[in-house]
């Protein structure tokens, strides 16, 4: 019998009307398989508020032009809108300067950018890159690729059965060859919130820079990159209520300036001659080619939307959903929650005795409940915890206790089918 997990304490009661917030997200009101959709797969991607959808369509209908190159009014308007979005992301994470925000295709590209540009320039044979066992594949494979190219090797921070990183072991991983730490802020498969500020301080004591994968953190909590002290912070637009295909990389001015370009092309140059090319200043140096202008503008609209919601309310509401779902799920026969760190975002992975996660997912889908099943792109986590796959419900601020109830009722159906 699994020990009952203490539900997180709820310190803030919801003050905003969730029904009104849900009305901002058109997709949430669509039916699914004859029922009201309960969308509980926010760690995979979030739904979009009408404001984001409108920003995309307004850009294409009224503002579309290439940026940073036209002398005509329309191009200047598009440039202004694109740069305004950069400013919005800068303020969201409290970066010191807008040029410390580089637009990318997403968190994956943000990490690849650093792995290529920083790694190729600074890693050598025998150097070490420190990662945690709970990284998403997107914060593992880019480092493996750069390790293959440079002869560097990976060192892995272990975790407990509950899904908490072993900070003592982390401290002991540093050697004179440690060149970079890459660690996830919030685990997408376990929900664990890692003590990033403390981990950055440890790394900096050893003179080692830190990249943080913040894809799962930004939609749930205020992030202050200067308070965290990290050198790089990767973000995904579509996980924070913005469009797909857009994300951002925060990097400190000194780190970004010390890196060669990632990709070559237009936009990122100062002058091009066959004898040699000089590069544009930040952030253009890392934004080769015409960027995803509409996506950046849509992301800016998503950030504006988030800014209008008090973080205390988001935190209080999501903590309530996490506590309620944690309690209700533990009453489901044969169900075990995977990932029980004391500090968790609103993500619950679970397994049910004798029923594979995919079967749970298919049956819940018939009940209108959308959850993710599988290894969640974290195969080392699954291997560490000895489970082939989990089912995962992940909540956003627009989810409700009713949707948790629909999840639990759906699991009753699983029990009916599998007996």
């Amino acid at each position: 019998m699994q020990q009952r997990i203490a539900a997180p304490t709820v310190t803030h009661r919801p003050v905003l009307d969730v029904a009104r917030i849900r009305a901002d997200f058109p997709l949430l009101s669509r039916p699914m398989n004859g029922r009201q959709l309960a969308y509980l797969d926010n760690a995979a991607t979030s739904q979009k508020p009408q404001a984001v959808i409108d920003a995309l369509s307004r850009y294409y209908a009224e503002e579309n032009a290439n940026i940073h190159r036209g002398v005509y009014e329309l191009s200047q308007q598009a440039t202004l809108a694109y740069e305004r979005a950069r400013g919005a992301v800068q303020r969201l994470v409290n970066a010191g300067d807008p040029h410390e925000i580089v637009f990318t295709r997403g968190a994956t590209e943000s990490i690849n950018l650093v792995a290529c540009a920083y790694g190729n320039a600074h890693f050598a044979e025998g150097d070490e890159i420190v990662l945690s066992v709970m990284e998403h594949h997107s914060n593992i494979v880019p480092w493996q690729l750069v390790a293959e190219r440079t002869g560097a090797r990976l060192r892995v921070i272990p975790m407990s059965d509950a899904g908490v990183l072993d900070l003592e072991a982390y401290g002991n991983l540093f050697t004179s060859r440690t060149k970079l730490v890459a660690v996830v802020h919030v685990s997408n498969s376990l929900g664990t919130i890692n003590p990033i500020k403390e981990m950055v301080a440890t790394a900096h004591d050893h003179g080692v820079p830190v990249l943080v994968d913040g894809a799962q953190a930004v939609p749930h909590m205020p992030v202050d990159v200067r308070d965290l002290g990290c050198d790089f912070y990767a973000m995904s637009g579509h996980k924070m209520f913005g469009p797909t295909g857009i994300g951002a990389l925060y990097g400190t001015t000194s780190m970004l300036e010390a890196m060669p370009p990632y990709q070559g092309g237009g936009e990122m140059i100062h002058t091009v001659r066959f004898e040699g090319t000089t590069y544009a200043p930040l952030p253009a140096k890392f934004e080769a080619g015409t960027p995803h202008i509409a996506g950046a503008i849509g992301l800016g609209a998503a950030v504006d939307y988030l800014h209008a919601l008090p973080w205390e309310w988001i935190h209080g509401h999501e903590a309530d959903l996490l506590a309620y779902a944690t309690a209700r799920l533990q009453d489901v026969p044969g169900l075990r929650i995977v990932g029980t760190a004391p500090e968790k975002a609103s993500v619950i992975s679970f397994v049910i005795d004798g029923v594979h996660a995919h079967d749970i997912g298919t049956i819940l889908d018939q009940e209108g409940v959308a959850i993710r099943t599988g290894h969640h792109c974290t195969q080392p986590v699954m291997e560490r915890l000895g489970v082939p796959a989990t089912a995962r419900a992940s909540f956003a601020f627009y989810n409700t206790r009713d949707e948790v109830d629909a999840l639990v009722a759906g699991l009753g159906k699983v029990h009916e089918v599998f007996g």
Partner: protein
Amino acid sequence: MAELRDLYQQVILDHNRSPRNFREIPDATTTVEGTNPLCGDEIRLYVLFDGDVIRDIAFQGSGCAISQASASLMTSAVKGMTRTEADELFRAFHHMVTAGPDVVPDTKALGKLAALAGVRQFPARVKCANLAWHTLHGALSDSGDSVSTE
């Protein structure tokens, strides 16, 4: 609306609970690994050929009810068949799970395997039913020691 009971028929639930031929064959002629990279399902298929005939076949691995039941039903069905017969059954099975929902499965050719026809209504799950069969196809054609559904 797709029906759950079409997918999770009794024979499938039974083969999932107590899979047949779930074991290793130490002196297998061919051992092939099959994986479904997107969902992480894995199967290791052991085939012992006697000339052209599949004298013994067994599997190990982990996955959902559909992939486990499909592997169990498949090993039961092809044991004793020649390579050609097994390959014909592979084609018939593949046709069944990819045909439109109105196509009536050829129960005479497929026997108990027809229980898996329900996956047609669940496109995301067709791969689960196919994993064992693609792995068998790899073993029959000797095309390598690993097979992927992607």
